[in-house]
């Protein structure tokens, strides 16, 4: 059974000073899309940070495809096939659109610095292949971004920045994608587009598991196969969207009770 699960956490927790931001969290995800909900400050982002290796958990284990990740650095975890986006859009402002996308391919490209200097044709081939892949990934969302590939990120509108960040995360074909509030700051129409974009990823046939943090319940209900609700660092409900949304604890948590 375990082997089927993409990612599993066992009693994972982390303390910041005295604050238990995540506590004894058991979580698992297989070939599916899981929505992670919970009021502000309930530890959702912190949980993603633990999975992606930015924080080391103070207790418990994170297991990805049967392998424990606790001691891995973020880059090693990315190489294992877990990639993510951030709650506040974190693209590299000093790089162009295409360079940001290429960053997502960094860990699958093989050119060594030695080859980059001495074997130009090989390096160029790989870069050109990479550019094709990136354009492919981004034009699924919005083909017009391709025309702006050589512009700095600062000239790109927010929704397209989000798309670029998501494309950067999926262009390397990860097994597990972590999305942190992909619709934050978007208006209604843009939110709709974002839902479509994420659906495209989910249904792309690439067998990708997705954990999506979201405040907008309409988004969660449309996208996720299963929902997990956190409050104060603990899991308070789990199940289908209907089940969770009718759970008393969840209502209480959202009402601040």
């Amino acid at each position, binding site marked *: 059974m375990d082997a089927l699960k993409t990612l599993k956490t066992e009693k994972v927790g982390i303390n*910041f000073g005295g604050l238990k931001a995540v506590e004894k969290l058991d979580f698992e995800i297989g070939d599916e899309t899981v929505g992670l909900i919970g009021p502000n400050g309930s530890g959702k982002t912190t949980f993603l*940070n633990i999975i992606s290796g930015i924080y080391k958990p103070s207790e418990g284990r994170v297991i990805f495809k049967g392998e424990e990740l606790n001691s891995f650095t973020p880059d090693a975890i990315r190489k294992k096939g877990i990639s993510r986006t951030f709650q506040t859009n974190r693209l590299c402002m000093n790089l162009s659109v295409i360079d940001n996308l290429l960053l997502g391919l960094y860990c699958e490209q093989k050119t060594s610095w030695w080859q980059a200097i001495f074997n130009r044709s090989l390096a160029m081939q790989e870069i050109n292949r990479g550019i094709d892949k990136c354009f492919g990934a981004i034009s699924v969302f919005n083909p017009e971004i391709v025309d702006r590939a050589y512009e700095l990120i600062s000239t790109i509108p927010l929704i397209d920045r989000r798309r670029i960040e998501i494309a950067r995360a999926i262009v390397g074909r990860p097994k597990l994608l972590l999305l942190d509030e992909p619709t934050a700051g978007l208006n209604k129409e843009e939110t709709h587009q974002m839902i479509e974009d994420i659906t495209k990823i989910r249904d792309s046939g690439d067998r990708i598991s997705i954990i999506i943090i979201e405040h907008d319940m309409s988004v969660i209900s449309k996208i996720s196969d299963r929902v997990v609700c956190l409050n104060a660092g603990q899991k308070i409900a789990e199940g289908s969207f209907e089940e969770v949304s009718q759970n008393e604890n969840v209502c209480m948590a959202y009402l601040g009770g």
Partner: protein
Amino acid sequence: MGSLILSQVFNAIMLACTLALIGIGFSLFFGVMDIVVFCLGDIAIASAFCILGITSLTGVYAALNGIFPMVVSNIILVICGGVFGAILVTVMYHTVVAPFEGKNINASLLSTVAAGYVIRELIGIFYPGGRDPQNFPNLLPTGYLFNNTMLSWRNIIIVGTTVLVLMLLYWFVNRTKAGISIQALSQNKEASIMIGIDWHKMVIVTFLIGGFLLGIAGFLTASYASTLRFDTGSMYGLLGFSVAVVGGLGSIYGALAGSLVIAFVEVFVTGFIPGGAAYSGVAGFLIVVLFIIFRPEGIIGEKSISKV
């Protein structure tokens, strides 16, 4: 052996006194502005040159001595040095610090390093014979307490002045409105501004006080060494920054602790390792590098978790 150790301890304390004030200068500016002004050492040395300049203008110095008793006129001189330091620091703030506020720190880093060079070279070029070592006049009383060669009046006054300045600073930071505002700013800038602390005013106050401290620091080092060289500022500043980092950047008491650590390391390497004199600087800086690698928050700094 016992008296050798004792005399080395004395030397270390003297060195610590000359380093403490400039270290505090670094911490003060960093606390309030989140900025490291790399030219502080040169400003201190420039202030010492200012005092030297006044004493070498025979007319002025004689007139001062004619009007006031010796002690008072010397204190006036030191205050002149402090005021000069304060003015210079304020000028530096407006030319090489303020324009880069809120931008990439590399810009202000480079500009203040460059400003140090400018100050140093200006002294070298425009002070008469500026590139040669200068004799710093002995403004402090000579002679010894209890006829003990370790307890020269000069050294006692240097330690005393440092302690006095530290006490004044303590009083200022903890007992005056401006001082408390500065503390608040260094702990949480946004919140302090929100509750109505005038940031710009406080920055100016900090710079004036810090500059005054630097002027006194320059006077003390020059008096301790009895010579003054135009190009010692960079080393002095570097030591001052090291002291602040070892103690915990941003903390005034940290700077004091840091200056003791660095001073003891340097003095003991010089005193007890054969041929160590040449490497005392190396040892001091190695300590700093090790601190930055293994304990970047310094001796009394708190470990902060950076939020992702």
